[in-house]
């Protein structure tokens, strides 16, 4: 499957949205491409954010350049990634405690950046979005939306592969291969095979997000990155159908984003040292802040079940010493280490945001092409991603699971076996994931374990957080890799991973549910969950 001589034009390090997007762009421009990821796709910041399709309005007042990039990419993604996008629109609301004067300058800044921003009557806002705080005194409607980063990333990977790219997950960079001052390849630790492998390339692109700091360091370059931790909460169901933001200077817990069957309140912002980026967890204080402030956006938040809490690290490139990490530019940083540090064949693409991943990929690929002397135009803004291609709706009455699968895989749903009782039976009842969908993911979407499967399908992301679906999914995985012991260990570590996110909000129904889950697996099935590392 992989290149015969392990030789590529370009190797991309990092399987987040940016890396996946860069792999797609490179492959589409005819470059022989390999993307490597130390864990699973979307395991870093890509899978740990709001899933907000920014209109750019939030940055309009402070960072016009970012705002303009946002709105432009926002419109592109609606077109090329329609199956990952929910065009909900968003509201920026002013509450009695906020300064209504901010609204005027906010709208002006939006319009200057090309972002549609309509001041609407608070009563109209309540009609549009009944969950919004009824005490609001002002509202602006903007073209915000939500985007599913898991689908977006895997769709880029699928397309990169269609264009000939090779893909390696669970391969961690251990060293670069130098030829003088040029980087000519990478040494990787293959975690499954527990061996070291080498791949050579003319250009290596560092798309490691916050981990890009260490990757650059390994190459001998210093990128001044500042890890900024943000925590978020996932609520049990969709409270709101429009994104709700506070119309004021960005602060804690001021965005509520509806995404698929849930909604997400976030975020906080805390500076963390580089050594801790793999260890971050939401704290009790952060949960308190998120609930206290979130309730002001939508009072229903106060009496809605919380599914879990999680934290991500923003890969901000520090340009000043702002301690909150918020007024830092969200702009894209594309570094040519040849001109900057004298290391040829090495590029770092960082900064930016989820929504500008495509533009970041374009910049990095432009630079790679320049280095390789390839003259090919970027087409990623024009050609739809797999899943977002136009497909016929046969108007047949579909099962709930089929409808749910279609909302996740778009036009690729036709790859899912359906129509017989076994394939149509449900693995995950909360999210409507069928046997057919799980098998499709296992066979075609780089699924090696339960966590991979969750990111590709939403198995275990629903109300029960794996209580009913995980044993069924583990069974299908065992069928596929043929090792029930491995499946059992995978099941235990998956349940522990689920608990990790429940622990910070473990009260009420979520605690009862977790207790019921442990009773089923530990009590009834005799599965040992306690030997696992991730238990607090």
């Amino acid at each position: 499957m992989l290149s015969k001589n392990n030789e590529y034009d370009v190797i991309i390090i990092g399987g987040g949205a940016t890396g996946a997007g860069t792999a797609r762009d490179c492959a589409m421009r005819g470059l022989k491409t390999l993307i490597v990821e130390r864990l699973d796709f979307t395991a870093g910041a890509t899978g740990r954010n709001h899933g907000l399709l920014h209109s750019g309005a939030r940055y309009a007042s402070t960072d016009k350049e970012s705002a303009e990039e946002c709105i432009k990419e926002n419109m592109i993604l609606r077109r090329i990634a329609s199956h990952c996008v929910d065009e909900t629109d968003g509201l920026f609301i002013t509450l009695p405690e906020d300064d209504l004067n901010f609204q005027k300058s906010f709208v002006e800044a939006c319009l200057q950046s090309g972002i549609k921003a309509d001041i609407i009557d608070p009563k109209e806002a309540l009609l549009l979005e009944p969950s919004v705080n009824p005490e609001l005194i002002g509202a602006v409607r903007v073209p915000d939306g939500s985007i599913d980063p898991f689908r977006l990333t895997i769709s880029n990977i699928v397309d990169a592969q269609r264009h000939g790219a090779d893909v390696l997950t669970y391969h961690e960079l251990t060293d670069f291969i130098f030829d003088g001052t040029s980087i000519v390849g990478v040494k990787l630790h293959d975690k499954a095979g527990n061996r070291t492998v080498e791949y050579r390339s003319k250009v290596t692109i560092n798309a490691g997000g916050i981990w890009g700091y260490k990757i650059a360091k390994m190459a001998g370059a210093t990128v001044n990155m500042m890890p900024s931790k943000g925590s978020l909460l996932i609520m049990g169901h969709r409270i709101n159908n429009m994104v709700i933001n506070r119309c004021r200077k960005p602060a804690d817990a001021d965005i509520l984003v509806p995404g698929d069957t849930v909604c997400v309140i976030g975020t906080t912002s805390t500076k963390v040292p580089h050594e801790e980026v793999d260890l971050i967890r939401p704290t009790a204080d952060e949960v308190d802040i998120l609930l206290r402030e979130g309730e002001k956006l939508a009072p229903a938040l106060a009496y809605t079940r919380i599914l879990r809490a999680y934290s991500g690290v923003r890969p901000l490139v520090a340009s000043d010493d702002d301690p909150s990490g918020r007024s830092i530019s969200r702009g894209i940083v594309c570094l040519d280490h040849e001109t900057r540090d004298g290391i040829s064949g090495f590029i770092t693409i960082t900064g930016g945001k989820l929504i500008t991943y495509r533009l970041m990929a374009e910049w990095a690929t432009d630079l790679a092409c320049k280095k390789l002397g390839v003259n090919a135009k970027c087409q990623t803004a024009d050609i739809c991603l797999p899943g977002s291609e136009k497909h016929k709706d046969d108007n047949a009455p579909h099962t709930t699971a089929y409808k749910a699968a279609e909302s996740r895989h778009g036009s690729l749903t036709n790859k899912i076996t359906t129509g017989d009782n076994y394939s149509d039976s449900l693995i995950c009842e909360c999210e409507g994931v069928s046997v057919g969908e799980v098998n499709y993911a296992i066979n075609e979407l780089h699924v090696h374990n339960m966590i991979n499967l969750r990111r590709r399908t939403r198995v275990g992301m629903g109300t029960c957080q794996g209580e009913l679906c995980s044993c069924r999914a583990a069974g299908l995985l065992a069928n596929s890799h043929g090792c029930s012991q491995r499946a059992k260990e995978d099941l235990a570590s998956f349940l522990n991973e689920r608990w990790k996110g429940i622990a910070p909000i473990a009260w009420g129904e979520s605690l009862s549910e977790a207790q019921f889950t442990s009773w089923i697996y530990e009590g009834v099935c005799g599965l040992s969950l306690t030997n696992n590392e991730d238990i607090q």
Partner: protein
Amino acid sequence: MDKKIALNISTSNFEQCLKCTICTVYCPVSAVNPDYPGPKQAGPDNERMRLKNADFYDKSLKHCLNCKRCEVACPSNVKIGDIIQAARIKYSTDKPKLRDMILANTDIVGTMASTFAPIVNTVVGMKPVKMIMDKTLAIDHHRTFPKYSSQRFESWYKKQAADQDKFDKHISYFHGCYVNYNFPKLGKDLVKILNAIGYGVHLLEKEKCCGVALISNGLIDQAKRQALLNTESIRKSVKEQGRTVLGTSSTCIFTLRDEYHHLLDIDNEDIKDGIELATRFIFRLIDSEDVKLAFRDDYKARIAYHTPCHMEKLGWAIYSTSLMRMIPGVQLTMLDSQCCGIAGTYGFKKENYEVSQKIGETIFKQIETLQPDFVATDCETCKWQIEMSTSVEVQNPISIIADALDVEKTMKLNKVNL
């Protein structure tokens, strides 16, 4: 601030589901119809999806009988049946068919049919007519329509009304369509018992069909109009006249008390406790030693009691059975509590006939094995189903009490002098 709110504990009832799936185990439909996703999925699971996108409404929700056995089974108190019915009301785009309107409008159909009772009874009982109804209206030809009575209960009552004022204590009687059009004897039996213990029986100022069939057939606006009218009449009786409203049908009473509030959004909290099943009312009077019943020595019967679904939901079967057990000559057996399959108008529909009979199968077998003198149950549609599907006659507990009652002795015991 509410303590509950501060703790962020969900008040969205569907989120209290812990996915234990006990409801699906107890669902009579899930057991026999693989097309129905079961209460857990149809209710709390899919509610999340419907909140995401109304397109996730699944037409198979029409298979729900609204028996509420899922709610009885749920250890987390999730109103699963209500969630499913509410989703049907909110999202279903299916228009009720002519057949559904005929079955649901028990009032109008009852008025017409009882006027021409002998003709109607003969005609709808004829095989060719049953076949025509089967083919044109999709009302299953296996079904036997309940016979209509020539004299309505209301007409009979008018002649008794004056006598009822002579009593010291009074109640109102929500007779329902069945007693009015099909089986006035049940109403007369109730009057007999209540008079014997010193209660005068009165009708509500206005009474319309409780609307249970309108709700299940999707005629929500009409159901709401009737519910409002009934609720006003009941309020007047309970609040102004101080008269508890009694019924002899568990489904009517359940609808008036609970479904009006849960499904039709009618606020009746203030009068809910004033709506009672007659057996419960009488049992509690006896239990508090306010009244006594005396029974005939020569009354002997082997009775099997069938718990209607709504009786199970109300938790009131114990009142009807305890009352019957007071009769010295009664030997009472409890049948397994499970749905008989009729679910009001559901079983009359051709497309549901097979499922309906499958659901009731084990209970029919149990009855045939026991061979009781008769089956007792508090619901008229259960009666039709069991009588059609077994060789045993079915009676309402009130009729059994009335038959076994020694009226003179009871009047004496309660010092009723007229």
